[in-house]
C-alpha cells in the first residue's frame, strides 16, 4: 500500500515539500544553525522511508521534479552575480584572483588531508567541491566520480561551520575590510556564509553573494585541472 503511494509523483512532491516547510518552520522558530532545514528534512525523510521500507529508487523517481530544479537554480545565480557585480567593479580583478586562490587551496587541502587519513577516492571526489553552493557541488561531484549524497550533506555542514566560525577567524586575523569579510564568508561557506555576512552588513552580504557564483565557477574549472595534476604525479 505504502509503496504505491510513494509511486505517485504528486504524493512524493507534497511529502518532500511538507517535510521541508515543517523543518523551515522549526529552524526559524529556534534560530539554531545546526538545525538547518536541509539536514533536518533529509534526516526525517530517510527515517520515514526506512521505517516504511520504501527504497531510495522509488523515492528518487517520485522526487525527480524537485531534483530537476537544481539546474535552473544554478543558472539563476547569474542574476545574483550581475546585481552584485555593480558594487565591486573597481576590485574585480583582485576579487577574481582571491577567489581562485581560495578555491585552489580549498580543493587541494581537503584532498590532501582526506587522502592522508585514508579516505576512499570516491569520498575524496565528493569532498572537492565542499565550499561551493550545493547545486553546483552536486554537479561537480557527479562529474568527477563522487557520491552526490555525501556531497549534499558535506556542503551544508561546511556552510554551517564556516558561517559560525568565519567571523571569529577573520577577527583573530585582524581582517576588518567589509569586502574581505564578505568575500571570505561567501567563498568558504556559500549561501550559509552569505546569510551570516548579511547579518554583518549589506555590503558584506552583497559581496558574499557574488563570491558564491564566482567560487562555483572557479571550482568547476579547477577540479578537473587539479585531478589531472594529481594523475601526473
Amino acid at each position, binding site marked *: 500500500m505504502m509503496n504505491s503511494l510513494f509511486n505517485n509523483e504528486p504524493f512524493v512532491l507534497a511529502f518532500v515539500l511538507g517535510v521541508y516547510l515543517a523543518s523551515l518552520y522549526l529552524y526559524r522558530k529556534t534560530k539554531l544553525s545546526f538545525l538547518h532545514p536541509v539536514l533536518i528534512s533529509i534526516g526525517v525523510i530517510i527515517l520515514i522511508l526506512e521505517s516504511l521500507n520504501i527504497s531510495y529508487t522509488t523515492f528518487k523517481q517520485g*522526487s525527480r521534479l524537485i531534483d530537476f530544479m537544481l539546474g535552473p537554480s544554478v543558472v539563476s545565480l547569474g*542574476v545574483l552575480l*550581475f546585481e552584485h557585480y555593480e558594487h565591486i567593479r573597481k576590485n574585480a580583478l583582485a576579487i577574481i584572483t582571491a577567489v581562485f586562490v581560495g578555491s585552489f587551496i580549498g580543493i587541494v587541502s581537503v584532498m590532501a588531508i582526506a587522502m592522508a587519513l585514508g*579516505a576512499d577516492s570516491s569520498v575524496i571526489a565528493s569532498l572537492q567541491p565542499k565550499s561551493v553552493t550545493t547545486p553546483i557541488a552536486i554537479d561537480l561531484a557527479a562529474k568527477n566520480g563522487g557520491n552526490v549524497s555525501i556531497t549534499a550533506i*558535506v556542503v551544508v555542514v561546511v556552510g554551517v561551520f564556516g558561517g559560525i566560525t568565519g567571523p571569529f577567524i577573520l577577527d583573530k586575523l585582524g581582517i576588518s575590510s567589509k569586502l574581505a569579510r564578505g568575500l571570505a564568508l561567501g567563498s568558504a561557506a556559500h549561501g550559509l556564509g552569505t546569510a551570516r555576512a548579511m547579518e554583518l552588513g549589506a555590503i558584506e552580504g552583497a559581496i558574499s553573494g557574488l563570491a558564491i557564483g564566482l567560487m562555483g565557477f572557479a571550482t568547476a574549472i579547477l577540479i578537473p585541472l587539479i585531478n589531472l595534476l594529481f594523475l601526473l604525479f
Partner: protein
Amino acid sequence: MLKGLFIILLFLVVGNGISLLIGDFIPGSVIGMILLFLGLLTRLIKKEDVKGSADALTGNMSLFFVPAGVGLMEAFGLLRQNLSAIIVSILISTILVVMVTGWLIQKLEKRNDE
C-alpha cells in the same frame, strides 16, 4: 514569470550544449550561469525579465537538494567508513579558505571605496 523561466531554461540548454562541446569539462548549469551574467552585463537580457523567476529559484535552492541528500540512505556504509577523514578534512580546509581568501583580498583591494 513565464518569460523569465523560459530565458533561464534557454541558458541552461545552451550551457549544456557548450558543456558537451568542450568535453563535459564544466557543468552546463555553471556555463549557463556565466552566460546569463554576461547577457545581463551586455544588456542583451533585461534584468526585469528574469529577476522574478531567478529570485524564486535562488531563494528556495535549499529545497532542491533535499532529494539528492536523501540518497545518503544508500551511502551510510561509505560515510561511516570515512567519517573521521571527512570531518577533519572539511573543517580544516574550510578554515583555510576563510583565512586565505580574506587575507589575500585585503592585501589586493583598492581602498577608498565602500
